[in-house]
């Protein structure tokens, strides 16, 4: 406990500039590299080393004191204290070795402006943020399409980009890269709202009305995904009949009750399709 108190006292005392600075570390230093602390004089003493990753205390011989790679693996400001003398030095992040890439959203409608957001965080092999500016390229494309590409310079270890989604639906590869490091995410580009929803009607063998849409696509020609709800409605003298059909293999179909004269309509979400007057006034 006393030792900890002494260490803290020395740290704050020396950090305040009261220590006589005669220690030296040759720089610039990189995280994970070895360094030498030059301490004039001879004989054994105790070295206190404070850094962003922790603090250590060990007996050393004055002269050239080796600081191990393990002691300096966290980037940031370090303070070394030796017999009331201290020095501060900065350890920079090592070479870029990893990118943490956040891509949002995981699904996006086709041709949506500025809808895809990618943020790349650059790290060295010790998980230190690489603060030196580095070019980061972003590419978003569905296979077989040119896609969209942009290069951004990372600032304070972070590079981000906002891209438009492409015209074609499918799994888009969203790649962030800098130097040799590449990280890939998948952004599912999905069809947007149906465009020009159209249906036709015919009489079923049992007399009911069989309604069926043409292939349902968005305005870019992408097939609206199977399972999407399409509501068919028939209004006649007996009342209103509705069926919430699901798109299956690109089409939606349903059977509405037989009627001599009915108005048939179709809708998907808030998108309305055509209307058919069935029977007498067809």
């Amino acid at each position, binding site marked *: 406990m006393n030792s900890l108190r002494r260490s803290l006292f020395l740290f704050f005392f020396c950090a305040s500039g009261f220590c006589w600075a005669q220690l030296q570390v040759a720089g610039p230093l990189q995280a994970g590299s070895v360094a030498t602390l030059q301490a004039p004089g001879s004989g054994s003493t105790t070295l206190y080393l404070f850094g962003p990753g922790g603090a250590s205390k060990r007996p050393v011989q004055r002269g050239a004191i080796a600081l191990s790679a393990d002691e300096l693996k966290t980037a940031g400001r370090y303070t070394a204290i030796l017999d009331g003398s201290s020095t501060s030095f900065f350890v920079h992040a090592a070479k870029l070795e990893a990118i943490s890439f956040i891509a949002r959203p*995981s699904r996006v409608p086709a041709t949506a402006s500025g809808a895809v957001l990618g943020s790349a965080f650059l790290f060295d092999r010790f998980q230190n943020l690489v603060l030196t500016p580095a070019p980061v390229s972003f590419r978003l494309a569905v296979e077989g399409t040119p896609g969209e590409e942009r290069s951004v310079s990372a600032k304070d270890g972070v590079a981000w980009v906002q891209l438009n989604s492409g015209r074609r639906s499918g799994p888009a590869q969203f790649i962030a890269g800098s130097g040799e490091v590449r990280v890939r995410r998948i952004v599912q580009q999905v069809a947007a709202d149906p465009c020009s929803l159209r249906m036709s009607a015919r009489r079923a063998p049992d007399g009911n009305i069989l309604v069926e849409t043409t292939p349902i696509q968005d305005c870019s020609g992408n097939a609206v995904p199977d399972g999407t709800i399409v509501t068919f409605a028939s209004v006649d003298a007996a009342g209103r009949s*509705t069926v919430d059909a699901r798109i299956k293999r690109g089409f939606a179909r349903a059977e509405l009750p037989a009627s001599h004269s009915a108005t048939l309509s179709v809708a998907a979400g808030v998108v309305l399709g055509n209307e058919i007057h069935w029977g007498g006034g067809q």
Partner: protein
Amino acid sequence: MNKVLPVLLILLAAALVAAATLHSSSLASVTTPEGAVLALLNHVKTRDAEGAYRYVAKASNTAPEDFARDVSGQEGNLRTYSALQHFDTKVLRQDDQQASIRATLEWASAVGAVYDSRDLKVVREDNTWKVVWPVQPPAKVPPQVIPVNYLRWDIVTRGDNDDWGAQNVDAPRVRIISMNPVEKDGNFILLGEIENEDTVPGFVSVAATLIGKDGQIMAQEESFDKISHVLLPKEISPFRIDFPNVRREHIQSVHMQPNAMLVPASADPVIGVMHQALQKDARGHSVLTGELVNQSGQTVNIPHVLATFYDNAGKVIWVSDGYGDQALAPQTPVAFSLGVRDDLAPQIHSYRVTVNQYSRDRVQ
């Protein structure tokens, strides 16, 4: 004195037993048409279908097992999870040979009270009164193969050991497309519609927080069962959130919170709602009637009907719901009836009916 008290207690117990016996025998009395109905319903109340059947007229042409299915439920329908809680009877017409009696039934069920009203014909048969209780025989679905190859969505989410920046699948994108606050009988009610705008199914709910004039939270509620919780892509559900005993003039603002979760789901079954019509029932009240048709191959045990009513400006003016007490057999129409507020009926310009379903054996 020590012996008087036990003797008094025994006498009191005997008197109570006698009173109870007399009471039940008066209910069981079939000297009047109303007595026959009361006796039948009392047996139904005690889940004694066999005893109740003794009061069913031969003219009903109802087999005992059909009667038992009608009053006790079948195929896991809502009646299976219900018990007759309370009933009232009213004689509409009566002569020496037959009578017409209106029975209003309240069933306690897993989803709350379910009300039913029947106009029963009572006839004199073998010098006693019996109730005509016709039962629709269970629909026979012809043997057939109904191809069902609708979609199913499964989800693979991010693993525990993945990097913090690793991608996950987003919750579905949902949007409240309309909202209308109304006040009714001293209650504040929020009505509206929510759409799943995404291409994947979602489990949705809508919560609302009322902020009072002092800026403090007055109340928080959720849509509970006045909503279709599982919404397929582009599906729209109405919602209704009731705040009992809250006056509109005390509210400064309302904070709506739509919530959505990605859930595994199936696009099956499809339930058609046929021949919907707004009309008056026998008592002159407005009702929305129609037929539900299960277009898939598996029985739907409990259908839940949700109706959204719009005025001529397309604004949602009411949302009502009701649980069907009959299971939906494949391809078989089942009638439904939903109560509509009589004061709103003249304002209703259009309506939309959707159906939730609860199926015992269905794998989501």
